[in-house]
């Protein structure tokens, strides 16, 4: 039973190799649904994790293996994100890379609410980015990096939203993922840090590439309308929630 729950959790809180099920399934859904999936499904996965080992942390003998797998998974998906050119795929890969931190924290015995905030830390910006990828696909026919370029000139509101979402996904300070990452890393033995520090570099690199190829430069495509006021309001709410998560994640709330 534990094994089945564990495997199911590895699909819902995606970790290699079962993360491909999460990615494949999400890819089949429309953009709006994908945004919901990345918010909700990891939360279900955390519930499942809590149910494994009768609510106790994993056995000590298993912890290094889980941490190792989480680290490898995070690195693998960060590397994959570097070569991804489709915005939705890029976002999902970054999400998978980031959610590996949840596994670290779980292995270290962090309580359920902490894990949920962690999943939200990556899930919220990922949901925004996927929503915007959908908006871009509807307008341009696709959200492919390096084709049009210069979106900042034609869709400034969308660009602003996307920049914030990407920064949040790539653990930039102020955004919750930043605090969650450090929280997760507290549980990692010092010897593992050389694997996690390059990860931050890889995330930054992937974000830089995205900005350079998608947002800046000269725009080459057809005229497009920017996202509307409702979308802006929705995105603003998402970031306000993010801010609240940040406050909680940075120790502003006594959640542990």
């Amino acid at each position: 039973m534990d094994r089945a729950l564990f495997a199911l959790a590895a699909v819902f809180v995606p970790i290699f190799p079962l993360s491909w099920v999460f990615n494949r399934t999400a890819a089949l859904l429309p953009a709006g649904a994908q945004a919901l999936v990345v918010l909700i499904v990891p939360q279900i996965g955390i519930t499942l994790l809590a149910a494994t080992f009768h609510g106790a942390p994993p056995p000590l003998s298993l912890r290094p293996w889980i941490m190792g797998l989480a680290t490898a998974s995070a690195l693998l998906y960060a590397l994959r994100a570097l070569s991804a050119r489709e915005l939705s795929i890029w976002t999902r890969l970054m999400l998978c890379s980031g959610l590996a931190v949840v596994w670290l924290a779980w292995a270290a015995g962090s309580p359920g609410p902490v894990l949920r905030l962690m999943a939200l830390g990556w899930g919220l910006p990922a949901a925004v980015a996927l929503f915007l990828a959908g908006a871009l696909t509807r307008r341009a026919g696709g959200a492919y990096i390096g084709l049009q370029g210069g979106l900042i000139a034609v869709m400034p509101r969308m660009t602003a939203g996307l920049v914030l979402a990407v920064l949040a996904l790539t653990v930039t300070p102020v955004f919750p993922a930043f605090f969650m990452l450090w929280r997760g890393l507290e549980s990692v033995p010092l010897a593992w840090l050389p694997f996690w520090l390059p990860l931050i570099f890889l995330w930054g690199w992937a974000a830089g590439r995205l900005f350079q190829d998608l947002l800046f430069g000269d725009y080459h495509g057809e005229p497009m309308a920017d996202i509307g006021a409702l979308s802006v309001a929705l995105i603003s709410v998402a970031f306000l929630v993010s801010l609240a998560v940040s406050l909680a994640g940075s120790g502003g709330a006594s959640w542990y």
Partner: protein
Amino acid sequence: MVLILSDRLKVRAMVYVASEPIPRFWPMRTFIHHNPLYGLEDRPFTAAVAEGSRLFHARGYLDRGSYQDYRRAGKIDDVLIGRRIDAFLAGRTEGPAGLDLKAWLWQLMTATDRPRMIERGDFASGAGIRAALEGRTQPVPGDDLEGRLRALLEPRYGPTAPVYRQVDALFGTTIGATVDDLVTKSCLDFFDEGQSAWQAPGREAGFFQAWKGLARRNVRFLLRGLHLRQVFSEEDTAEGMVAYILRRLEVPEAAWQDYITHELTRMHGWAGFIRYRMGAKHYYWAQRYPADLVDFLAVRMVLGFALLQEGRRRHGTPASSAGVAGLLRTAPVQAYLRHELYGGTILPAWAHKVDDALARARPSALAGLAAAYVQAKADWENQRTAQALRGLARTVGADAEAGLAGLAPGQIDVLVGLLRDWEEGEGPVWLEAMESHYIGELAARIRPPAEAEPPATRRPFAQALFCIDVRSERMRRHLESLGDYQTFGIAGFFGVPLGYLEYGKGSEAHLCPAVQTPKNLVLEIPAGLEFEEEPLFTALEHVLHELKASVLSPFVAVEAVGLLFSLGLVGRTLAPLGYHRFRSRMRTGKPITRLLLDKLSIEQADSIMRAVQRAMIVRALARELSIPRDQVTDDDVRNLREVALGNEAGPSRLAQRLGMSQAAEHDFLEKLRSVYRIDRAVTSLQMGRLGRIGFSVEEQVRYVTQALLSIGLDRNFSRFVLLIGHMSHSENNPYESALDCGACGGGKGLPNARALAAMANKPEIRRRLRERGIVIPEDTWFVPAIHNTTTDVIELHDLDMLPARHLLYLERLRSGLAAAGRCCAAERMPLLDLPARLAAEPFAAAALAQRQAHDWSQVRPEWGLARNVYAIVGRRVLTEGVDLEARAFLQSYDYRLDPKGRLLENILTGPLVVGEWINLEHYFSVVDTESFGSGSKVYHNVAGRFAVMTGNQSDLRTGLPSQTVVKDGRPYHEPVRLIAMVEAPLEFARRTVARLAKVQALISGGWVRLVVLDPEDDYRMHVLEDGGFHVHPRSGRAAHSAPDNPVLEASPCNR
């Protein structure tokens, strides 16, 4: 691979031909406004723009939206557009029936805001568009897809384009960008002019050889897997290397010329700078570290070749032209999908699918995908065109939509072709329509003199000769409105081309238009008789500068003296003007100087040579033989000199007297020749150089005569004749010299003014002028001055030479000039986005102008020559009192003093060409701020002390920065060609132009718009258009004196 001599020679010849369209790029210290398409000036303007756009990947006209903005502002002549549409339609033999094509073209031009409505497509067709109009899709024939794709691709991947560019386009690699980066680094190392603390070694050997020496040991190249040693072992010379690589790339010989052109024009900034160096014989850095375009090309090609080889080894990408052709031949489907994906033309919805399929590389899957993609692309293209046609028909109105719906596929093809052809040639029509508007404005503004001009009865208080620069117009207008001043316009070098060696400077500056090379050299020498020691503050500055420039000292110095630098930082930022005043007080001013202006006689030159060489011998004796001066007589020194020069046989008297051995004397004499340059050949060379110093009396008379007659000043001289050169002052501005005088080669005009004034004040020169009929009164004094265009201050110079009786009037003169300057500032400051109230507060405006000049964060200290549009060659009476908004080059000229047209010839070949270069530099910098202009100043960095780059490495930015020509994202400079109006009888002007081949080519080629204002034909304006002169309908005395003539009688200061 064996190369023959002819290959090498061929490469040299081809590089020469390929470099012709590349504009020379002068170093920033002497920024020369030049036409970026100078190399194509032998072609008509429109043809040259098309070729320039192709070569430099640039745009030659503004986009449609910008022209429409001008139209809404009333700056476009609709009548001319209508005429051009009529002419275009008259030239078409076929057109779709039932459509009002003129209305379609009119709406296309004036009512659609997209830069291009009818795009070219790979698969669009009349039948497809017809189907799209009806809401259907037209199936693309599925047969022979491979053949059709091959036919589509092969013309686009011909052998003339660099192989790496083709590989980049087909495989998404970045070899081209990497080559650019590596070449930039190599160029920065080699061409550095003292910016780097550590210089690259071996530069004396030339660019390619020095680079080769470094590249062999470059660890970064090794780490990248670039096997350069192997390439270097094949050929030694640069041209041999180019030929070798072209053969290894399997580029057919017939394509070499175009291939080389593509390579050289890719980074035309660097290529232009090297081209300038090649031709600048006097350029110190070029003499010391030679380089040519063959070297540059060889470096590019070696790097490109090595990177292609690396790509072949690592990723299996083609590494030759034949390899690319092979891919197109054997796998056209894959090549097409690659072309679409990596060329950025793919439909976004298909991008991921195609990327995925290419990664899997299964031919059958690719074929199926390609067929589906081609259908989707065809549908998209047809729908896009149908949508554009439908939208256009809607704006045309009436029954246009019904007419469109009734067109057969063949007629749709014709309509689409017609619209597309019009759109492709639309730019020149907008341009002409805008120029036509400005010609009309000029016709409305000028004020022809009355029939019978009354003779001058009064002597003006002062006459001032200003540069023709557009910024002088404002100052002239205000000065004239203030009182009894008469002004003239003359090229800022005052017709005196000179090489100038400034006191304290080590190299000669050429102060004349860039197209001339001065024969005469003028030295500035201090008039102070006392020896001056270097002041403490200046010495301290030198020490700090050395500390900064050194490689190691900053590590120590930053903590020790870093705080000192912060004082400057804070001062410059918070109180730029106060800080400037503080520093000025700390420094000692420049001493009073004189110009060495008169030609040296042979005896004088010989005497100088002897004196210098004797001093050198005395020094050599002390240093080499430790013989002090008191043991040597003048005779000994003279005899040693003669022996060293070979005029007398040895042993020398001194050697005999001191008992020197023959060998010791021989060694000493050799040192005298080689180290101390007491050598016959060097002496002869130095004598030649001394011969360049100064002007002969005849030359001085000629220059003064020419300057005065060319502006029509041959009588009624006033007490002061001011010769006012101009300069600018700004901080932290690599483009400062772009704001200086273009007619002085981007330098300051003061030395020329001082030279001409000194000549004209000489009694001997005046005597000779009198013989030629130019009588300058005894109490007339020529005073040199400089107009600072950033601060609007005019400073008088050489006042210590002013006759005492003139001092009585000096206060009046100075106060008049200062008041005019303040009025200029009041007019100018609001244009720089400063408060509009300054227009009514001249003192505040002048203070702010001073601050602008010393503010190191100011990206736009002044507008410079932006918005220039006219060149008016004629008497001031035509424009006196008219506000030309600092948009006109004003060259004074009186055709009545020029019966043979020689003076007009000089004006047309000198000032007019300078004006044309300035105008076209601005034109192209604004129509394409990135390719012809130099983009935003904000990202600029100085490169090697001779140019700027964007970021830390890029091609050299050759044009004007966007801050100079763009305001709030819209063009501030209105891009039109220079409208040159000449006041002269039509036939006279026509004959004069016909004698000047270059000017004729510029005018008939449309690089300059010529308008002749014929005083003998009732001042009608004859506009050269469509190959002939046409009388402007709103010209002639009656039209010019119409009441709606927008003449400003009062300056802002007077209101």
